[in-house]
């Protein structure tokens, strides 16, 4: 166990190092310069550009820029080019905004897809199974931004509540219950949208795992010795089918940071995805690279956690 942890720590550090190089090169070798963001701006005189280039080491060779950048990042001193605020602080603020979306979305995904998947595996081939299957394909295939507008049209015309943004502007100072309801309405749509794809995929996966276990001999034995079907399904089958999902707890970690650019843009939600999108538009390289780096760290940490969880959950596995 300890040797596995040490080995994978070394391996993942090396991977992270290469990721940092590749992302740095992609950003810096792309055509166009960050100092030319807005050539039409009259305040952008050549002297200013020169000062800008000097302040952010843009006049130095690429490898030195790389060293400066990652030194600043690891010591936490890295600042955004756009507003000179510390990037890590900026990301943390936006992360706190994205967190409710992520939590509600994840809860919805995990609480809905298990009952759906298990039931459709038990009644395999029946009308329920086929309906769930069809709807999960529908949800996988629907473009998120289109579904967002369908939901907005539905909710706004049916319930007459505003849904764009994090809260209705100017409602502060009112009494508590309407404010909380307002927050919930604003939170509901983006998190449902974030969860749809997850529910569709995860419920399919639950179904196939359940089907695999239900075909085993010990399930037939359990049926044959006259156990109640509920006990067979939920005690004997489900517990064994759950094993792969233990590892998926690690894999939801990267979802903290990506995958919400479009939804956050539509709902004007000041979260991580939107910040990344704005940084890309403004060619704010420190923010882009930091988001990339943090998400790579989360991916690696996620796979590591899932490996460890797998070992803990299944003693047969030795890595």
């Amino acid at each position, binding site marked *: 166990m300890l040797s596995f942890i040490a080995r994978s720590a070394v391996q993942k550090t*090396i*991977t*992270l190092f*290469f*990721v940092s190089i*590749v*992302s740095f090169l*992609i*950003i810096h070798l*792309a*055509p*166009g310069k960050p100092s030319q963001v807005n050539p039409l701006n009259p305040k952008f005189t050549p002297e200013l550009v020169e000062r800008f280039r000097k302040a952010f080491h843009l006049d130095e060779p690429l490898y030195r820029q790389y060293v400066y950048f990652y030194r600043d990042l690891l010591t936490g001193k890295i600042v955004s080019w756009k507003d000179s605020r510390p990037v890590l602080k900026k990301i943390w603020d936006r992360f706190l905004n994205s967190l409710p979306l992520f939590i509600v979305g994840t809860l919805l995904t995990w609480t809905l897809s298990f009952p759906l998947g298990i039931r459709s595996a038990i009644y395999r081939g029946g009308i329920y199974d086929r309906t769930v299957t*069809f709807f999960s*394909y*529908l949800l*996988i*295939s*629907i*473009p*998120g*931004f*289109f*579904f967002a*507008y*369908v939901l*907005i*049209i539905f909710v*706004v*015309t049916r319930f007459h509540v505003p849904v764009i943004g994090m809260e209705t502007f100017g409602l502060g100072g009112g009494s508590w219950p309407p404010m909380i309801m307002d927050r919930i309405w604003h939170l509901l749509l983006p998190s449902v949208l974030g969860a749809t794809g997850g529910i569709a995929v995860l419920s399919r996966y639950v179904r196939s795992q359940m089907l695999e276990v239900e075909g085993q001999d010990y399930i037939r034995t359990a049926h044959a010795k006259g156990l109640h079907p509920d006990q067979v399904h939920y005690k004997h089958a489900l517990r064994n089918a759950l094993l792969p999902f233990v590892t998926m707890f690690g894999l939801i970690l*990267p979802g903290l*940071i*990506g*995958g919400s*650019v*479009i939804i956050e*843009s*539509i709902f004007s939600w000041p979260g991580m995805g939107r910040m*990344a*999108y704005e940084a*890309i*538009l403004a*060619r704010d390289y420190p923010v*882009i690279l930091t*988001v*990339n780096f943090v*998400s*790579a760290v989360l*991916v*690696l940490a996620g796979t590591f956690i899932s490996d460890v969880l797998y070992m803990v959950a299944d003693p047969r596995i030795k890595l």
Partner: protein
Amino acid sequence: MQAPTATYSFSEDLEAPLAPRKTRVQEAWGMLRSNKLAFTGLVIFLIFFVIAVLGVFLTSGTNPVFDPAMVRLQEKLRPPLSRPRVEVLSPEQVPTLGIYLFGTDDLGRDVFSRMLQGAWVSLTVGFVAVGISVLIGIFMGGLAGYYGNAFVNSGHISCVILMSLTGIFLYLGLPLFSLFSAFAFAIVCYLSIKQVAPLSIPIMSIDTLIMRIVDIMLCFPSFFLILTVVALLPASMYNIMIVIGLTSWMGAARFVRAEFLSLREQDFVMAAKALGLRDLRIIFRHMMPNALGPVLVSATIGIASAILTEAGLSFLGFGVPPPHATWGNILSDGKRFIFDAPWLTFVPGIAILIVVLAFNLFGEGLRDILNPKLRERSI
């Protein structure tokens, strides 16, 4: 049905060749016909293909049949199936069908023509991007699966470093340095072919190397990476295709590698090797056809996700530059009018949904058809 009559003799029956009654293609076709959802997917895909190809011919050229760029400011935001008001239009502005089948947008352009034009973008982006990713995936996966045991030694690595140095110096405009490193490259190559001692220290196996590259690629958040690169590069359809292709080959590579690892140990590959066939022939003639099944399935589903990615990029305003219509940017233009002109959202949205759904269903059906366990059960 007529009862079979015993007109043929036993000897004939025994001497007849013992080939299976149905070929594999016929069998697959039969299974596809019996899988209703997958068959529907295939039919929708074929219809979409025909529409997209027809759309290119009907909407391009100097005087197209359906003009997607014809602006009619008198006829803004007309609902679907409404008749044009002929009295306010000049003769060439009247839509070809005599009716606005899908309505008009905020500039009075016919949405039907724009949808026709956009179909081609979705189709080509889907196919070319997945083509690129499958080619890279097959190459990398095949390399890792077939030559995986071979070692990369220090000579190889220094060759690659020197070669890229040559390129970098050339790019930076330092021809002298470039010439020097090219010369060093030639010497190191020669020495490492001769297997001189310090250049033949094994570092890692090819399999490890390629799988580490896959790991590195998997660390990038894919949509964010695509968005970054597309935003930095000049806007064009080809950039999107290439970027989506370059960032999505990892799945195909893993599938091909896994298949090759198991195929490599099988008797028919051993037999082919014993016959003295060249490696390339063994790989492409004997192993690849057996490894393509999972790749085909993941490619079909990959087309669906590439279409979705392209639509998402167009929606955010990247990709194909504006006068050209794509399904994503029709929807994006229409989002300002979702309550006044919902058809600008629903027409492209439902079109994307149907096409992506068709590819997903067909891909899943293909998975069942190519699954040998299910095939045995069906006979």
